[in-house]
Structures are given as structure tokens and as C-alpha cells.
């Protein structure tokens, strides 16, 4: 029955509003399939959210509208502030952080619902208890895992912590959480006479164990594998929402949560396939730690040619077709504007310029695309791996900036390297390759890159932003 403002409204109104909201979410996602309609899609989805929240607020008897309004305003203010102040390069950690908040909210909602039930001295029905336990575990893992992932991406802590028996620790934590969940379902009255019984104590034991588990799961994973972690946690936060829907018997929560769960899962699978690694290998295999030492200098000794912006400019002068391959280094150096300016200058002088973007370049799915879009690179210039690979043999100059493993020809070797079998951008098929890097340090795979020693390859050492800016200035002087 409707209470509050909508008292007297027919019972079917609420589910109908939820149906409309679900349709808006789905239509919004459908519009996301093309850049031209995507902004509209995002707005459609937001409208669905507004409708669902507004109807819910009006429908249920709100005992403390002041508290509710305060919470909504506070959350909106924090969210807006974070969104407006973020740099595009910091986007991965912000998305991770938001994600965590969604998961955390799910865990708290399930807990609040349980305490209400326990307070009435009633036992939660088994299906509610099961769903609450799942929401609690997924939500807590998502919250703490996302915080750790965001912290790593933001550079708050970089270390990848590994220790003996870490898998055992994870298994024990999961076992504790599941046991607490089992108590919640099978023995809800086990704390019946204790003073804290009304607080659903077994649920909070579950939350505590799952929280530590969330930290333990992400701490051993290296920075370069964070795209997979963020995508997976995104999926979890959706599943947590769907599970909350099972607890509260709420259709829109189930539909929307499942859509998000599917989105995150698909992105996770794409990321893993692009690295030719299985999901368990990413999560538990324990590499992806960035090597930054200079020991590689010895391996390359005497086989490296370095070049200067002047020489590269001369090369570009005679080029018909240029492909730029950006990597995480471009994001770190904030070089996207300089890179975009270079591409624009080349285009003005009749050179065919495209960007070759590897699916795992950067720190989240589509990271490079967003950075380049910010710098006004048209999206039809950004080519995916399958599109750009056949064109390298007709390309005069490839400029690799801040990328390494994704252009390492060792990946084509059948076995024996950590990146064997990973699809790469075949830049070694181009006529000339310019690699812009600060040093010869290896990528996160920790192996040397034979591309650097090829006769056709020249190294343009230096910070990506500085090097690209020098190149732009050089080009301007001569045209």
C-alpha cells in the first residue's frame, strides 16, 4: 500500500514506475552503442534513475524526510565535487572509487534490513537471509577491493604485497564469511539472548571477514592489471545491487543490477582475452607488477639507435601514412594534447594519421580513447587492434609513445614468455618505428622488447609530453 504523499494511489503504480525506469536504463545502454547517441543515452539512463528514486521516496512512508534529504544532498554534493574536479588521467581511480561506494551501500542496506527484522524479534526467512548474506559478501568485497584498487591507481601506495600462504588466508576469510552467512540462514536465533541480538551479529561477522577478504584479494595484484580488477569489481557492484533486489523483492534493482553485472563481466572478459590470460591467472597469478629498474640497459647494449625530434621531423616530412600508438606512459605524462596537436598538424599537411589503440593500453577499458577524445581527436581516427593491424605494412612511420608490452613482437612466439600469445599491435611491419620512452625499462611483463633493437626502430628518449611538444615545435618551424 502506498503511504505518505501518494496515499490512495493504486498498488500497481510502483511496479509500473519501476518498469518504466528499467526500460529507460535499457534504452540508455542501447544508445551507448554509438558516440553520437551516447550522451543522450546517458541522460536517458539518468532519467530512469531519477524516476525510480523519486517514486520510491514518495511511495514509502518516510519517517524522517529531513534525514533522507540531508543524505541525498550530501551525497549529491560529494559526487558532483569529485566529478567536476577530476582530471581525465585520474578517471580510472575515480570510477573505482564510485564503484566501491555502490557496493558498500548494498552491504549496508542488507544489514539495515536485517536489523529491522531482528528487532521485531522475527527471524529472517531463508531466502531473505541468503540474499542478504550474498549482498553482504559481494558488497563488502567490492567496497574494500575498490578502495585498494583506487588507492593503487592514484599512487597512494604502489607496492604489490605478496606473502607466503596468501591464498590460504583468502580461503580462510571466505570460509569465515560463508560460515557466518550459514548461521544467519540456519540459526538466526543463535545469539537470541545476547544484548546485541537485535543487531544481527552474524551478519556483521560476515561483513568484517568479507571486508578483509576484499583487501587481501586486491593487494597482491599489480597496477597494470587494475583494468581487469576495476571491471570485475564493477560487475560485482551490479550483482550486489541485484542481490539486494532479491532481499527487498524489488524488480528494478534486479534488472538494473544484472545489466551492470553483465557490462562489467563482458569488459573483464575482453581485458583478459586481450592479454591472453585467464581471469584466475590475473587475480591469483600474481604478476603485473611494474618493473622500473635499469638492468635492461645491459641487454640492449650497442643495439639501440636513438634519435632526436629534428630527425623524426624529417622522417615525417616524407611520410604518407603515420600511426600513433599511445600507452599508459602518455596518460602519466599528460601528453595527449601534444600528441593530438601533432596528429592535427600532420593531417593539415596531407598525411594520413590514425591512432592504434590496444585494448589493455592504460588503466581501464577505453582509457586511451577518453584521453584522446579530451584532446579533440576525432573518434573515427581511433582504431582498434583488428582494424589497424592489417594497415601497418602500408604505414611509413609508427610513433609509439608510452607503450611497451602491447608492441612487443615476443608475444608472437608460441611459448616461454609471460606475454606469449597476447595479441599485439604489429608495428614492426611498418617501414620505420619511433619509440618514445623515458628509458629502456621493461613493461609490466618484465621482459625486454626486441622491437627496440630492430634496424628500422629509433628510440626518442624523454618524457612523452616534452618529446611530443618538441616534435610539434620542430614540425611547425619547417612548415
Amino acid at each position, binding site marked *: 500500500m502506498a503511504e505518505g504523499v501518494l496515499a490512495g494511489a493504486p498498488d500497481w503504480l510502483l511496479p509500473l514506475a519501476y518498469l518504466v525506469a528499467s526500460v529507460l536504463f535499457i534504452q540508455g545502454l542501447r544508445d551507448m552503442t554509438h558516440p553520437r547517441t551516447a*550522451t543522450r543515452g546517458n541522460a536517458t539512463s539518468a532519467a530512469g534513475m531519477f524516476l525510480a*528514486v523519486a517514486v520510491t521516496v514518495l511511495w514509502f512512508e518516510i519517517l524522517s524526510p529531513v*534525514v533522507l534529504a*540531508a543524505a541525498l544532498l550530501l551525497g549529491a554534493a560529494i*559526487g558532483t565535487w569529485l566529478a567536476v574536479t577530476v582530471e581525465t588521467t585520474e578517471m580510472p581511480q575515480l570510477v573505482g572509487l564510485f564503484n566501491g561506494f555502490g557496493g558498500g551501500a548494498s552491504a549496508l*542496506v542488507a544489514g539495515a534490513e536485517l536489523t529491522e527484522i531482528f528487532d521485531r524479534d522475527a527471524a529472517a526467512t531463508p531466502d531473505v537471509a541468503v540474499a542478504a548474506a550474498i549482498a553482504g559478501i559481494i558488497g563488502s568485497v567490492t567496497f574494500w577491493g575498490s578502495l585498494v584498487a583506487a588507492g593503487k591507481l592514484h599512487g597512494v601506495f604502489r607496492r604489490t604485497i605478496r606473502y607466503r600462504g596468501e591464498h590460504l588466508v583468502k580461503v580462510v576469510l571466505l570460509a569465515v564469511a560463508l560460515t557466518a552467512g550459514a548461521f544467519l540462514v540456519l540459526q538466526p536465533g543463535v545469539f537470541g539472548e545476547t544484548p546485541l541480538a537485535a543487531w544481527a551479529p552474524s551478519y556483521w561477522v560476515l561483513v568484517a571477514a568479507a571486508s578483509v577478504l576484499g583487501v587481501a584479494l586486491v593487494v597482491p595484484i599489480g597496477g597494470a592489471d587494475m583494468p581487469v580488477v576495476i571491471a570485475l569489481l564493477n560487475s560485482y557492484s551490479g550483482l550486489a545491487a541485484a542481490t539486494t533486489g532479491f532481499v527487498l523483492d*524489488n524488480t528494478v534493482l534486479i534488472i538494473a543490477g544484472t545489466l551492470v553485472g553483465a557490462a562489467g563481466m563482458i569488459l573483464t572478459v575482453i581485458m583478459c582475452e586481450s592479454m591472453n590470460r585467464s581471469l584466475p591467472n590475473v587475480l591469483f597469478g600474481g604478476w603485473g607488477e611494474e618493473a622500473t629498474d635499469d638492468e635492461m640497459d645491459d641487454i640492449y647494449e650497442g643495439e639501440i639507435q636513438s634519435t632526436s625530434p629534428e630527425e623524426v621531423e624529417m622522417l615525417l616530412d616524407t611520410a604518407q601514412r603515420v600511426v600513433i600508438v599511445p600507452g599508459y606512459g602518455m596518460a602519466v605524462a599528460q601528453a595527449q594534447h601534444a600528441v593530438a596537436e601533432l596528429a592535427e598538424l600532420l593531417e593539415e599537411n596531407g598525411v594520413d594519421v590514425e591512432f592504434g589503440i590496444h585494448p589493455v593500453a592504460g588503466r581501464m577499458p577505453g582509457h586511451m580513447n577518453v584521453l584522446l*577524445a579530451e584532446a579533440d581527436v576525432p573518434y573515427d581516427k581511433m582504431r582498434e587492434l583488428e582494424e589497424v593491424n592489417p594497415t601497418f605494412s602500408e604505414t611509413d612511420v609508427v610513433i609509439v609513445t608510452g607503450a611497451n608490452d602491447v608492441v612487443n613482437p615476443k608475444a608472437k612466439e608460441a611459448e616461454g614468455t609471460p606475454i606469449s600469445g597476447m595479441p599485439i599491435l604489429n608495428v614492426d611491419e611498418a617501414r620505420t618505428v619511433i619509440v618514445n620512452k623515458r628509458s629502456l625499462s621493461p613493461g609490466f611483463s618484465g621482459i625486454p622488447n626486441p622491437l627496440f633493437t630492430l634496424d628500422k626502430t629509433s628510440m626518442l628518449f624523454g618524457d612523452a609530453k616534452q618529446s611530443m611538444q618538441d616534435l610539434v615545435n620542430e614540425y611547425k618551424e619547417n612548415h
Partner: protein
Amino acid sequence: MALIENLTLFVLAAFLGYSIITKIPTNLHTPLMSGANAISGITLIGSVVVAGSGATTLATVLGFVAVVMATVNVVGGYLVSHMMLDQFGRQDGGDR
């Protein structure tokens, strides 16, 4: 059987989500993520129901924190998504 009805919804939504999301181009994967993220803030509804009923102080406190967190997720997620998509949208590029 509410459980079976809910399960039906879940399974159908999963298939629908799969078929739509596999069509979204790589270019838009970051905005997709933050947008999907914002949708997962739908737990806000759950939070509102629980915080609103406010039968116990504990439930109200938990609900309050949950509403704040979920709202940050929703508002922040849609906003960053919008900002990123605007950068794609302001171009007059052709079809991919």
C-alpha cells in the same frame, strides 16, 4: 513464488545486457563503465526504503550512510560519464 519470479527477471536481464553491451564500441568503454557504475547506484532505492522506514536508530544510521554512498555513486557516475561523452559528442566524426 517470489524467488522464481525474481530469478526469471535476473536471467532475462542477463541475456539482454549481454546482447546490448557486446555492441558497444571500445571507444566508449570508459563512459560505459562509469555509466554502468551509476546504474549500480540503484541500490539507492534499497537504501531509501530502509532508511525511510526508520524503525530502529541503527537501521536509520546504516540507511543514512548507505544513501550518502549510493548518491555519490549515482550523481558522480552520471556526471563523469556525461563529461566524457560530451568530448566524443562534440566532434562531427562519421560512422566508425
